[in-house]
């Protein structure tokens, strides 16, 4: 028999049944969450004319790659993928570098002004990001960063969440280690690079993935800051497929959605632990 639970081997029959019923309801709920992805894959791999069928076949009857061929020839999907990768990668790497340095100083250094500066960083982080978009947009236009990669990722890097998470993690590092390094004559940067960073690899991975995913999935800022089809990210590019054509080609759209979610979806399966840790620490879906 299928083992579903470790406990409840001894519970009463009534208890077992009510447990089973509720679990079945939870299972049905989970289908609401996964079903759209099944429908997306089905729509992507069947001929696009079949997306217009009423009533639709629930299971795929004919498989084809036509939608993907169209996606890669008629749209700039590959370019959008590259743009998204560059922007998300930059945000990830820069945050790891800058955030870990800052987090270290706030966690382990006692310098005048530490508390007030940290308080300002922390408070700003609780405010809604949308409030800052207009001045940012004006600024980016003024300094020639509109429709450029730096314009896309710099506001992401500036968000102090990474620093905050690094600080929290590094507070757990014993001071004795730092004292030992100092006694051995290691300079400030050498201590940071050779003592602190090697102890923080899991925090580096967590924060890195968090920033990569958040930037990868960002939509509002990317929609505002990009203009040309060449600079579009996957989210912006694929969402515009619906806007440019009068009749929506759902086959093409589902191929785009599949392509757009494949990379992060696959990465999620491989690095589930870091995803879960990172996103529960700071995810807010716009």
């Amino acid at each position, binding site marked *: 028999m299928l083992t*579903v639970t*470790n*406990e409840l081997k001894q519970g009463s029959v009534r208890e077992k049944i009510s*447990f089973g019923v509720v*679990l079945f309801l*939870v299972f049905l709920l*989970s289908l*609401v*969450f*996964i079903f*759209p992805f099944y*429908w*997306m894959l089905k729509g992507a791999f069947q001929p696009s004319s079949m*997306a217009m069928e009423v*009533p*639709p076949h629930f299971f795929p009857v004919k498989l084809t790659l036509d939608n993907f061929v169209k996606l890669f020839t008629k749209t700039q999907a590959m370019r959008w993928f590259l743009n998204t990768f560059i922007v998300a990668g930059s945000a990830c790497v820069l945050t790891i570098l*800058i955030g870990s340095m800052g987090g270290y*100083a*706030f966690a382990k*250094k006692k*310098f*005048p002004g530490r508390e007030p*500066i940290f308080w300002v960083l922390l408070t700003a982080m*609780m*405010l809604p990001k*949308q*409030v*800052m*978009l*207009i*001045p*940012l947009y*004006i*600024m980016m*236009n003024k300094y020639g960063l509109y429709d450029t990669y730096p314009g896309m990722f710099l*506001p992401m*890097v*500036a968000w*102090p969440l990474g*620093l905050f998470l690094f600080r929290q993690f590094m507070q757990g590092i014993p001071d004795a280690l730092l004292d030992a390094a100092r006694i051995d004559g290691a300079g400030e940067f050498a201590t940071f690079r050779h003592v602190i960073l090697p102890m923080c690899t899991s925090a580096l991975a967590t924060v890195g993935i968090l920033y990569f*995913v958040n930037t990868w*999935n960002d*939509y*509002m800022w990317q929609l505002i800051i990009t203009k040309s089809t060449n600079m579009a990210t*996957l989210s912006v590019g*694929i*969402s515009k497929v*619906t806007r440019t054509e009068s009749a929506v080609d759902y086959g093409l759209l589902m191929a*785009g*959605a599949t392509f757009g*979610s494949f990379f*992060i*979806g696959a990465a*999620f*399966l491989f690095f589930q632990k870091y995803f*879960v840790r990172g*996103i*529960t620490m700071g995810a*807010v*879906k716009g």
Partner: protein
Amino acid sequence: MSAVAVLWSRMRKEKAAYLFILPSVLLFLLFVLYPLVRSFVLGFQEANLVSAKWVGLANYIEILQDPRFHTALINTMLFVVFLVPTVVFMSYFVALRLAPLTSRWQTYFRAAFYLPVVVSGVMISMIWLWIFNPVYGLLNTVVGFFGVKPVAWMGYRGTLYWLMVVVFTFNFGVPLIIYMAAINNIPEELYEAARIDGAGKRTVNWKITWPLLKPSTFFLFVTQTVAVFQTWVVIQLLTNGGPAHSTETIVFQIYMDAFWYNQYGRASAMGMILLVIIVFLTLAQKLYAGDDVSY
């Protein structure tokens, strides 16, 4: 030595610390704090990309008297009132149900509920756009089985609530995972002691698990409120605020006013109103939850 000199010598001693925080602080000043202050100023101006004119409180007066804003405010509140408690309480009950499962089933459920959190909201909205389509959409076929006539899901009075269903799937994963982790952290002895005292399952849930998870619950209420306030992608892609502006929220109107109608002053003022509401709600929740929780 004077106090200033003491401070100066301490600062010089720790000059490495200032170098460490310099990049973060510079980026923060440029791309977070300055925009925040500038937004506050813009709220009192009539502005576009090239010019700005001082208008005092005109933007605020105009917004507060605008029926379109009233709709947005009500919609935003409906989102918060319906979604936040539903997401938090349901994730708690589901987490309770999942706790005794074997790890393989837990992995399945965790992945299933978490996938919509990980994948871009744009991609998922695209799929729902198709499912909700009045002619080719799956949903109308499904309700057709039950004899319901085709519904324009994204263009009638109930549209707002269907948007909530989609947002629900976006927001459910995070609280679930947090509750699952928190339940795992409760020491087994507490449950054993309760069982010896003859407490039933229901009593254990309400008298032990729920009170112990109060800090998580508070944290989730605060973060979910902020998250729900920021709902935007789904509205932008599924209804674009329609039909007839009936599904617009505050954040959606900020975006439209700023980047569609080029009314930077009005949009900034609305941003400030949003900020005040969020800060107020956060503080209210903190007061209500008492001093024993911190986050």
